[in-house]
């Protein structure tokens, strides 16, 4: 581990790496946005209805496990 640390210590301007990370985020964000835009409308509807669809068909079995 020490060897690795010593190596990294030598890197000139290691502070640049925050800027790189901002770029990573930007790229990542564009990628996610692109993937989301490409997603099919039907699938989105299906997904957004997921919390709703077991509203009515639930049965109560008087505390009996099947």
């Amino acid at each position, binding site marked *: 581990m020490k060897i690795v*640390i010593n190596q*990294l*210590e030598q890197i000139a301007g*290691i*502070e640049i*790496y*925050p800027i*790189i*990370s*901002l770029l*990573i*985020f930007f790229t*990542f*964000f564009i990628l*996610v*946005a692109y*993937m*989301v*835009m*490409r*997603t099919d409308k039907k*699938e*989105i*509807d*299906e*997904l*957004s*209805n*997921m*919390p*709703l669809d*077991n*509203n009515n*068909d*639930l*049965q*109560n*079995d008087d*505390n*009996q*496990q*099947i």
Partner: protein
Amino acid sequence: MELQKFTYDNRLTNFFIWATVGWGVVAMLVGLTAAFELIFPNMSGEISWLVFSRIRPVHTNAAIFAFVGNGFFAAIYYSMPRLLKTPMFSKAMGNIHFWGWQLIIVLAALTYPFGFSQSKEYAELIWPIDILVVLIWVVFGLNMIMTLVKRRVKHIYVAIWFYIATWVTIAVLYIVNNLAIPVTWTLSYPIYAGIQDALVQWWYGHNAVAFFLTTPILGMMYYFIPKVANRPIYSYKLSIIHFWALIFLYIWAGPHHLLYSALPDWAQALGVVFSVMLIAPSWGGMINGLLTLRGAWDKVREDPVLKMFVVGVTAYGMSTFEGPMLSLKTVNALSHFTDWTIAHVHIGTLGWNAMMNFGMIYWLIPKLFKTKLFSVKLANIHFWIATLGMLFFSIPLYFAGFTQALMWKEFTAEGFLAYPNFLETVTQILPMYYLRAFGGTLYFIGALLFVYNVWKTAAQGSFMRYESDEAAPKALPNPKESGHRKLEGRPLQFTVAALVVILIGGLVEIIPMYLVKSNIPTISAVKPYTPLELEGRDIYVAEGCYLCHSQMIRPFRNETERYGEYTKAGETVYDHPFQFGSKRTGPDLARAGVKTLPNYKPDSWHYNHMINPQKVSPESIMPQYPWLADNEIDLSVTPDKIRVMRTLGVPYPEGYEDKAVADLQAQYAEIANGLRSSGIDVGDNKEIVAMIAYLQRLGTDVYNSK
């Protein structure tokens, strides 16, 4: 295709709900006690386990981990099986999770008031309990992931992504922040020191807010708002962007807790930039939640559940706007160390977290007990009392924050501090503390109405343990799928992706701090603490002094004028753990020991002040610590402390542990004799002398070298 029948077990949801209700009352009651202690400082009297600085962690931890934690566990155990069309993977793991978590809470309540604390805010638990937390957290996570693997639906709804991100990130944060070397069963020293320790702590602390108080509650929001309003979320596409942007950005924001501190500028700048960027995903989430209710506002007027959700999400929007503003350096220069922060976090907890919990429980209890809510009217009253209570709590504290900060910064025309006596700035804002206690009382009364209402609701119904449902078996993955659809269908890959996303931010910030020596310029005059000072420091940590006294002088003229030269990173290199603090209810102590500074106090003053602060300054709101003059230092542990410190890199010479006790006693005798000569009868090996030794050491290294 043939449908498969299966049942949901509501038992653990029910357990977690009642734990939320019970611990919620405890958390608020302790908070209220703390609020009253600030206006009646002698309330705790000579009872050590009731003193403000020891019960404040009980309050914060109970609110975060017991009240909010159990609340979102209830949400997870209810929503996950229904979204995934399968029962939770293992009942045994669920039980271990539930009982283990409650045990942790009880252990926290049994350790903090008795002075067992690591002094890292919201991570004060001592190391054996930390290990228990990690084990229970792993059981909880495995149960979730295995449930995901067993699911009958193809895709995973967005609420569950938030649950997964919560689990994975808290695991990373908690472990990294708690790495320490044990000295005894109840004491350990963190492997990080000073400014590095502070960075790790606030990387954790801020992300505890992000991933314990925000992401799981957003999961709750994405499930329960559509469910209760019976309409799908406003924009599912927005929720995907919301999720990824939020977890990516949040992890970077920690350094905004350390602005103008000795943290290197580049790290501070990163914290600010990412904090400001956070407005976008946060508000995306808020808008998504609120707009789900478009066209359903008539329901909101009638239904206390939706009302609670609306105020909850609105409070989320307010505090996520305020947060980025507070992280701007100019605003932070004013707000930091004041009650402004306290007001800000209570908009988050009392507004966002608690309202979401209340709403969810008002909706779930009638469902689980097959009945109607006992009294809608009472729930509406609770809604109003809680909303007013929150405002009465926070608004006075905003005023207190501005007022005190402005007083600290004010100079006379001659160029002197307008309020050189710190106490003046405290007495000025005391009326606001009374109002805060009033607001807290209102909120607490509301919570009692809530308990009564849900209790009566449960009593009039009968608990429905099992519910049956049916669904088609899971279809095989479609090889043609690509992109995000594919990722969503694969929980393990998804978890890893979330982990990678949060690690990027964490690593970029923290690794350079460790690698680049220039980040922490060494100061040759800074020497390790003497054994007596080290003992005193441990007492300072155990008593929770850092909760009201900072040790971080920012480079502002008013602060250097009041407290002395600003704090440098190199001065903190032997501080395991760091003691910067985050709030100045009392003055900064970073240079308490420097004799040439205007606020220097002699040993006898410190002695009398700790025994009874009001005797020394009648208007002081500091509680008394008379037990320090009775409790004795455990000299048998001193050599181990030295040994562990040396392992951590503090340059005590080899074999010094054998001489440490003798050195300690020599320094003790010097201070004790001084006290005795000024008429104070102090016994042998008393904690108070170690504490005085520590206070008199603070900040002196840099001055002595001049």
